[in-house]
């Protein structure tokens, strides 16, 4: 039985995904990137293999993606995370009846990708210059409000009155704005939902530059945050397709690409 792996070395977390011959996902593993991401990436990969009891040789092809893709020597090939995300979302989206637009909010950037019917990237826009509207913004806010990331979702729905408008376009200023709002005695719930709406507005504007087609796929770590998902759906005015492991879609895409590249190479040799 051959296996294929995709490793997404992101700015905040390293995600690895493993698929078998038929392209079904065998398992995924997530670990923080930390400082020496080369060792951490290797460990994440080995942990994933051990979890499922698969030897290193069984993994025929590894594709690396993400910021650190070029420096991960283990990988046989590297691909940009936009293409990997597109392939992963396209595959995962089939279960939900096909997706055409992908919104990904990563640790330090947010991306909007439009793919055509065959799944090829036709247009994409990235915001990787400013931390506002990215996962970092949520981390900073959660730390200031002393809430865990997972609880952000519940706080969003617990809010009684309308969400506050956090109009700061910069993650650093947002911090001071949150503290100001707290001092004025606003509830944490309104602040959290305000933050969600501010991120949602920015991301939808990014997506508009690319053009929004039906069934929008939403992945990346923050996709786990139900509050943010609700805000996004409200801003977009349409349902969002959320996979059950939103963080590993890119790695999954890289794995699928590894499989197709391996099959293509073996066909050429044969």
């Amino acid at each position, binding site marked *: 039985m051959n296996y294929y792996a995709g490793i997404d070395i992101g700015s905040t977390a390293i995600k690895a995904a493993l698929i078998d011959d038929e392209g079904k996902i065998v398992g995924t593993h997530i670990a923080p990137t930390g400082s020496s991401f080369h060792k951490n990436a290797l460990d994440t990969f080995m942990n994933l293999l051990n979890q499922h009891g698969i030897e290193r040789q069984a993994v025929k092809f590894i594709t690396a993606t993400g910021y650190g893709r070029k420096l991960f020597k283990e990988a046989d090939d590297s*691909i940009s995370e936009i293409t990997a995300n597109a392939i992963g979302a396209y595959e995962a989206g089939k279960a939900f009846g096909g997706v055409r637009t992908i919104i990904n909010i990563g640790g330090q950037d947010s991306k909007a990708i439009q793919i055509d019917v065959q799944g090829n990237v036709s247009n994409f826009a990235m915001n*990787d210059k400013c931390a506002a509207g990215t996962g970092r913004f949520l981390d900073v806010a959660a730390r200031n409000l002393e809430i865990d990331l997972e609880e952000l979702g519940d706080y969003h729905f617990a809010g009684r009155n309308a969400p506050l408008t956090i109009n700061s376009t910069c993650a650093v200023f947002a911090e001071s704005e949150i503290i100001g709002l707290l001092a004025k005695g606003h509830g944490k719930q309104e602040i959290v939902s305000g933050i969600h709406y501010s991120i949602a507005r920015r991301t939808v504007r990014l997506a508009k530059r690319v053009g929004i087609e039906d069934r929008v796929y939403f992945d990346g770590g923050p996709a786990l945050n139900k509050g943010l998902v609700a805000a996004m759906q409200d801003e977009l005015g349409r349902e969002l397709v959320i996979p059950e492991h939103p963080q590993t879609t890119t790695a999954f895409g890289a794995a699928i690409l590894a499989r197709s590249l391996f099959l293509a190479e073996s066909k050429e040799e044969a």
Partner: protein
Amino acid sequence: MNSSEADTYYLSRQAREAEATLEQLQDDFPDNPQAMQYFYDLFHRVYGQGEIIKHSGKLVGTTCIHAPEELIYAFGATPVRLCNGSYHYDQIGADFMPAKSCSLVKATLGSLQAKAAVPNTQSLDLIVNPTTCDQKTKASAMMSAMGYKVEDLELPPAKESEEARLYWQRSVRRLATRLRELTGNKLTRKKLQHAMARTSRAQTAFRTLHQLRKSAPTILLGKDAFLVTNAYFFDDIERWTAAVEQLNNELLQRQQDGFQAAQKRAPRILFTGSPPIFPNLKLPILIETSGGVVVADETCSANRMLYDMTAVDEWRLNDMVDSLADRYLKPCTCPIFTRNDDRQRRLLQLATDFKVDGVVYQAFSGCQVYEMEYRSIADALAERGLPMLYVETDYSPDDMGQLSTRIEAFLESIKTRKRQAL
């Protein structure tokens, strides 16, 4: 540090930046044409070791392609293009330029500010500053504040009307008078004709290079082509022409041998937008290291500077000077003009001629005119079914990460599309 050490210090940081780029140009790519060695050495000597640019007669700096160099040569002076591409001078220029402003103008002002500038132009006798975009127009006051003699070459904001054309012809003629005061020489028909002949020989060489780059698979990488045209900024025109003619012969040989400078299915990229000026060849190099190949460009550091030639009906002084003026205004596709139909048409024509797969549109952050034209160019290209990547960057190397992601994603989308199309 006193000023002389400071100068050497600046020189050394500037030199390191240039050397790094030169090494990238030479080592990251296998089998560069031998004829390119002349250009590598030239840049090494001028940028790396700060060799002084030899010139006969007065040295006249120009800050844009609109300054007619034939006129400057005819007065016995030597033109040198001052547009600067080094991030180091960009930092110096940033001291007296607004935060979000064009890196090119910042770098140019920075190089003028630094006494031991690279390329080392020593003392400029005159700077001819065509009033093109806002920032270059405002920069002229700053240049004269630095103590340089500056001649503002007034450019009309629109170029379609006859009034604009006559206004520009008068500006060029006024420049001729100013050059006469500067050099004390008299403009004669023979001198101007001789200067125009030399420039047209250089343009002929460039056009041959331009035709050769149409061959598919491509035989010359875009980064070399940019280096060649960047050398035109300061190199002696006859030596430059000879070197380019030699390069053309070698490329012709390569074409016959069926030599491939990039992989077979490398996406053929048309580069447009803000001019890549040595050592800021960051984007072309990135494209070509990520597997693409820049086959054609529409920028004022290459095609727009050298492509269009002058036609003269009667070889008389007045007619020749007016023909020169027309040649520098009418075909210009610079975004400072109100309409950009010419530029759209030029891009679409280059796309068909060079069988281009995708367009990379570079806009220096802070350059509003290029940023504003992005939408119309994108629509025009989309109509033709050409994908376009809009990249907003500046001279700083620290956005390489984001850029490489975008470039790779763009190239991959083209590759898959091409594989699909097969």
